[in-house]
């Protein structure tokens, strides 16, 4: 007891001396601020951490310098001038032999094909227009500064698909370009775009059906969702390609692209349905009861009260599904379509370009990465914007 009181007196004295304003406050210790402080806190806070830091630096040392050397410093960026006595030839892998690094002239030479596939060269401006409208309207839909979202959405979901189909396929005054000539990045965009646009409404319907009180509808939706989710996408594409002709009357034939689109959309819709169901289940029952008490019918209740909230909750999952759908479109190679990845693969098998596989794949990965990463960042942004709960820390 005595000790404590002595302590308190000492403290009081100290406090009197340290009264604010009596002395200028000292700067924080140099070891705690600036770059040194940051290093001490984040990299060397304990000896275990220090070892981990050194390990991480070693891993970076193993990966980054060789990669940079390969991809940048030792790479062939432009077609070298013709050596004396060598016949003039289109660019090929032999032109890269002088350098140890990547052969980027492969990507340069093949870029038009990577983008448009086998689309008729003189008609490629039509694809460019579609790309342009797509980019502008997506920017318009996502940007917060631009108003009139409703008109934009109607244009994007109702008018644009028809316009795009007319521009890409032709007819009505434009030269027809058969779908078997479609390929490359353009095909990847078409597949994922149509998959995204159709799978969401279909998925919502399936999710509502699964939660329906009507046993027949409920069972039908459960069987549909679980069956599709139980088998790999590639088997569904295979089935759409090989088995569908068996199910149709003789003579009726579907375009391959259409069959693939059907398979991709159904597959994505089943996954979408589960994400939407999660959103529906997360809503408190009071929302349903409140809507019913207001005298709203089923569809009114869903459209006005339930779905706007449930879809908002489900946004991260929905965007994740969009991302995996975009990546899954690479599987259409199994039915012989030349999407972006497949056309890059085919390009590096060209006898003039043997040995450029890795370059092609790295380029391809970069493009997919940019798109998917942008989508995931946007979904995180949305999540933050819509987040109203309490945040940890």
């Amino acid at each position, binding site marked *: 007891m005595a000790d404590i009181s002595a302590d308190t007196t000492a403290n009081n004295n100290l406090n009197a001396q340290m009264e604010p304003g009596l002395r200028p406050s000292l700067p924080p210790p140099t070891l705690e601020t600036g770059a040194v402080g940051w290093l001490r806190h984040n990299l060397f806070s304990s000896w275990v*951490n220090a070892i981990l830091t050194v390990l991480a630096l070693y891993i970076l040392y193993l990966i980054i310098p060789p990669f940079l050397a390969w991809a940048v410093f030792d790479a062939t960026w432009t077609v070298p001038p013709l050596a004396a006595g060598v016949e003039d030839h289109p660019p090929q892998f032999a032109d890269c032999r002088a350098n140890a690094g990547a052969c980027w002239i492969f990507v340069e030479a093949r870029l038009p094909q990577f983008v448009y596939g086998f689309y008729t060269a003189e008609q490629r401006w039509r694809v460019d227009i579609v790309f342009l409208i797509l980019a502008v309207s997506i920017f318009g839909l996502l940007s917060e500064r631009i108003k009139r979202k409703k008109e934009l959405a109607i244009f994007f979901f109702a008018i644009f698909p028809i316009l795009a189909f007319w521009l890409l396929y032709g007819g009505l005054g434009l030269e027809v370009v058969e779908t078997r000539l479609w390929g490359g990045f353009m095909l990847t965009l078409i597949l994922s775009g149509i998959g995204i646009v159709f799978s969401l409404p279909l998925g919502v319907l399936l999710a509502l059906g699964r939660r329906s009180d009507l046993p027949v509808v409920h069972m039908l939706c459960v069987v549909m969702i679980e069956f599709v989710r139980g088998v790999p996408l590639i088997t569904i594409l295979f089935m759409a390609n090989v088995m569908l002709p068996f199910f149709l009357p003789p003579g009726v034939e579907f375009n391959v692209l259409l069959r693939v689109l059907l398979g991709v959309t159904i597959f994505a819709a089943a996954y979408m349905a589960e994400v939407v169901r999660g959103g529906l289940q997360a809503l408190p029952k009071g929302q349903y009861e409140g809507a019913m008490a207001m005298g709203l019918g089923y569809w009114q209740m869903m459209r006005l009260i339930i779905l706007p909230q449930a879809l908002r909750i489900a946004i991260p999952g929905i965007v994740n599904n969009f991302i995996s759908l975009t990546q899954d479109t690479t599987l259409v190679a199994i039915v012989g379509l030349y999407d972006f990845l497949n056309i890059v693969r085919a390009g590096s098998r060209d006898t003039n370009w043997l040995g450029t596989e890795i370059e092609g794949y790295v380029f391809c990965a970069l493009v997919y990465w940019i798109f998917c990463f942008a989508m995931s960042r946007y979904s995180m942004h949305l999540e933050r914007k819509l987040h109203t709960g309490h945040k940890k820390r």
Partner: protein
Amino acid sequence: MTADVQGSKDASTATVTPWWRDERKRGIASQALVGLVLVGFVWFMASNMLANQERLGVPMSFRFLDSPAGFQLSFATISVTLDSPISRILLVGALNTLFASAITAVLATVLGVIIGISRLSTNFLISRLAGAYIELLRNTPLLLQLVFWYASVVAALPAVKSSLSLFNVIFLNKKGLYVPDPVFQPGAGLVLVAFIVAVVASVVLRRWASQRQAATGERFPAISVSILLLLGLPALTSLALGNPVEWDIPVLGGFNFSGGLAFQPEVVALIVGLGLNSSAFIAEIIRGGIIAVSHGQTEAALALGLKPRWTLRLVVIPQAQRIIIPPMVSQYLNVVKNSTLAGFIGYPDLFSVIGTSQNQTGRAVECITILMLFYLAVSLVISTVLNWYNKRVALVER
């Protein structure tokens, strides 16, 4: 809900409601319509299929399974020859799928847990490195990763003469991966029995230890004793029997390695590609699970005086486990489903074997039926087992 409707209907019997205003009758009518459309659709498909099969002269029959396949597989876990019936080839394909999926799942789990925890590390470099790994692998298509690994395995690995080696027993080169092969002498079964006994004993030990701790508060080092049992019992048995399991170590001779187990580049690329890809997804699941445990739980545990290590083990992980299991179930299912991409890099999984058989026999409907049944069965088994486990660890509310 139906009860409500019933009630309101009984109350208003005085005024006759038209049937389309009655929710119950309307439900029955709309369902009948859906059912009718469905039956019509299925009947249309089935009749077309039968007509088409008849027209093409290939009536539905699974007898083709007994005819010799006439094609060889580049990788097989059980013996198979050119004359083997198609059923045997399909079995090999199914086993290949399960083999690749199982190894991938183990690899991905170990790697995913490490990466997921690294992502949460307070060490800036480590967490950023893990983040870059996850973002890179999650945002590029799996097929691209597989073909990339395949191309790099073939292109970037050294020739046979200058193989990469681990302790001179495991070798990696352009032609694949060479690991020691266990050779079982008579008596090897007993070692396996010893191992099973050790597993059972450690489960019993753990249960007893936790019961005793609950009753008396005394602790028993169950984990270290179990590890000792699991390693020691088989080792002792093996010693007592005079080493019935011998290791056939690969040896470089001439142009290639002889002895040991050889895995072709396809197998290596498949397992590496699929494993790394799934590990990124598992890492995110682990991270999400740990983050989802409310920070108040950690703070309360620390306030009670638990050390950080025990906070993690006794408070955070048991709660995170419940959140982690359901997405892990679907991730394991994804591993099995994603292994169908193996065909693209020449690994004979069930899908690619079925594709070849279908090409040769023209039996599309039968082949796809087998394929779908297999994947549905695997999905069903995995999700049943893991859902059972999930129920066991789930929080019992109210």
